[in-house]
């Protein structure tokens, strides 16, 4: 394995990108990711915030104290991981973290790994999804992604511009990917619209430093209210209203997440008023 350190987008030529490494390093170590070439993109991806545009290389630690960004994003960063990891982890890397499903992490030949069975559906799934969990019941772990989806943020990559929600796709029989990012596509910036008010609420196993059992982001943008949830579906999950929670399809041992989601969505909407 080798590590390259390009200093411009033009120099990019294949390889696995690494920014802070807080996701890539454990995946490499556990053999879940193979790489001949690692590409340290810290010299290429912008870092810092100006005029509603956030460099994808900005760390969660920088964002949690950034006064100019909407409350929901700041709070999602503050409640993620631990101080050391927030010092290392980048915004772009956070959006692209892999499933935290323990079967996936232990390399079970499950559907997300290309197999023909979801071990979690039949097995242990307390942490798993209550929406879109038919094929893969993994629960998306990113607080930040839910916040950005609710805020209506857009991404700029080296190839295109897209809404953050367009970065994600549900895995299916034909394609097991949970993002639409292409090989060699690098996220450069996140652009935020004008947001009137926003909030992020998170239920955790312990009070600090744990993945969301359920995370709820809500934002008042352009006169409307947008809601997105973390920890409830294989990808960040948008709902139109609190009533949409009636359409959830919890598994036997994820039913507990539904009243939790209801309470948090209710509270988030009340806080926006």
């Amino acid at each position, binding site marked *: 394995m080798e*590590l390259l350190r390009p200093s411009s987008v033009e120099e990019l030529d294949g390889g696995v990108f*690494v920014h*802070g490494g807080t996701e890539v390093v*454990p995946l490499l170590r556990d053999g879940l990711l193979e790489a001949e070439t690692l590409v340290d993109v810290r010299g290429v991806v912008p870092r810092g915030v100006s005029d509603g545009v956030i460099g994808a290389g900005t760390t969660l630690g920088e964002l949690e104290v950034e006064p100019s960004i909407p409350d929901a994003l700041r709070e999602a960063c503050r409640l993620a*991981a631990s101080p*050391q*990891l927030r010092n290392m982890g980048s915004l772009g890397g956070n959006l692209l973290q892999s499933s935290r499903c323990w079967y996936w992490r232990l390399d079970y030949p499950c559907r997300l790994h290309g197999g023909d069975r979801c071990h979690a559906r039949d097995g242990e799934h307390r942490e798993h999804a209550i929406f879109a969990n038919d094929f893969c019941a993994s629960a998306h772990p990113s607080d930040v992604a839910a916040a950005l989806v609710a805020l209506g943020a857009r991404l700029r990559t080296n190839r295109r511009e897209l809404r953050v929600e367009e970065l994600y796709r549900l895995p299916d029989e034909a394609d097991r990917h949970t993002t639409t990012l292409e090989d060699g596509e690098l996220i450069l910036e996140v652009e935020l619209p004008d947001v009137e008010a926003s909030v992020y609420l998170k239920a955790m196993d312990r009070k600090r*430093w744990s993945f969301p059992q359920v995370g709820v982001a809500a934002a008042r943008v352009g006169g409307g209210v947008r809601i997105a949830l973390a920890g409830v579906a294989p990808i960040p999950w948008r709902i139109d209203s609190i009533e949409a929670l009636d359409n959830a399809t919890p598994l036997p041992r994820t039913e507990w997440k539904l009243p939790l989601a209801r309470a948090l969505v209710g509270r988030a909407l009340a806080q926006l008023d």
Partner: protein
Amino acid sequence: MDVSVTVNGTTYARDVEPRKLLIHFLRDDLDLTGSHIGCDTGNCGACSVIVDGVLVKSCMLLAVQADGASIETVEGISENGELTPLQQSFNEHHALQCGYCTPGMLMSATALLRDNASPSDAEIKKALQGNICRCTGYWNIFEAVKAVAK
């Protein structure tokens, strides 16, 4: 790959296997065994070190990613062989039992006090969030840090 880092003021140049984690490089290649490995998964904080002024978990970083960096480990925080006030305070407040978490706790608290010499109780607790201790119940560690906060 060639890696050159400065650790506690001394520069080391080594040929490093790109897969090697920074914590293993520090412990095995440089024989700086003060930083501990508690979990190897970014959870416990025993491996915390300061890289270019930023507190990180050295089990989450490849040694090659730290090429060119200036690193501080627990071995480097004492001054002229004397324990720092923070280290003294850990001693006085019985802020360690088995000592496994201590290097990481010291680095997190050192990073905190550098940024903020008079942290509030909440700021101290927050700064130690990423460090697990299985012995002390945390209270004595908190008190030790609080005692040196101005």
